[in-house]
């Protein structure tokens, strides 16, 4: 995806938007299909959070200064970012619907946990790319994604 280790802030923000959209798609499908009230309620909340994050990133992208140069990461770091993005499963709404059909409540939570952790790792990388003025917003979103991890794990432990 990156040209020889070159990543732009707007590219990373676009990926962040797609990430939040994929999260929302999955959580919406989980709300529709899960029979477990705790999981439905948690996924409802998670889906709403992802929508809010998507809006934050859209606003961030719209307010990017035009003169920001793409950042060139050292080769290994760029390879890591590519691998990180390549190793994630980002469902479309249609894929999410098909995916959750065969999922138990624990499967849904396991998928959500993996998804949220992948997202946090990506946002840590993204934080290096955005203008200084946007770093606080990214930090806030990272903190919120961490809260998602905690709540998902609590739900897993409660269901076990």
């Amino acid at each position, binding site marked *: 995806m990156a040209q020889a280790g070159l990543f732009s802030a707007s590219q990373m923000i676009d990926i962040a938007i797609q990430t939040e959209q994929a999260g929302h798609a999955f959580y919406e499908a989980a709300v529709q299909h899960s029979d477990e009230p705790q999981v439905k309620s948690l996924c409802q909340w998670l889906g709403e959070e992802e929508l809010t994050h998507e809006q934050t990133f859209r606003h961030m992208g719209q307010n990017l200064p035009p003169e920001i140069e793409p950042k060139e990461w050292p080769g290994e770091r760029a390879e890591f970012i590519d*691998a990180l993005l390549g190793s994630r499963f980002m469902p479309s709404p249609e894929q999410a619907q098909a995916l959750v059909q065969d999922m138990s409540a624990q499967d849904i939570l396991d998928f959500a946990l993996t998804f949220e952790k992948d997202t946090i790792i990506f946002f840590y990388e993204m934080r290096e790319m955005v203008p200084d003025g946007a770093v606080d917003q990214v930090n806030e979103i990272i903190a919120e994604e961490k809260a998602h991890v905690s709540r998902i794990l609590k739900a897993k432990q409660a269901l076990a």
Partner: protein
Amino acid sequence: MLLALTGQEILQIAIETERQGAVFYERLATSAQDQRVKEECQRLVAFEREHEKTFRRLLGQRDVQRALDSLQPGQLSDEYQQYLSALIDSNMLPDEETAQRLAEEAESEVAAINIALQMEKNTILFYQELQNLLGEQAGVLQAILDEERSHVYELNELKTYLQD
């Protein structure tokens, strides 16, 4: 103290993380049919063992333990402590038996690589927080983090190779 854990206990968690990683890769190196998978896993075993040694050295460094022990619960939000707890509790390889079992019972080499990828990512997340918490004492963690990131890249390449 953080999460009611001493600095020594937190470093011990890192040691166990690396040790179980080595057990997983060792088992996978034995059971894998594909030569490239075997070789890659053997490389990763060596890395995990080196990381374990590094964390053991940190155990002997008073400054590092003091830095962790000096963290007061009030300095960190409940939410943050819950997150750290969640990272520790959702470790995929909590013990040697689980590490071996997951490597042996993976339905395919790709499935095993997926487990390894999640394991490495969880480790990255944990060490990133450890780095944040240790501040000035965190120097050696940067090299470990860089190596863990390269493991994600290598494992993803291996997965792509197996799926082609």
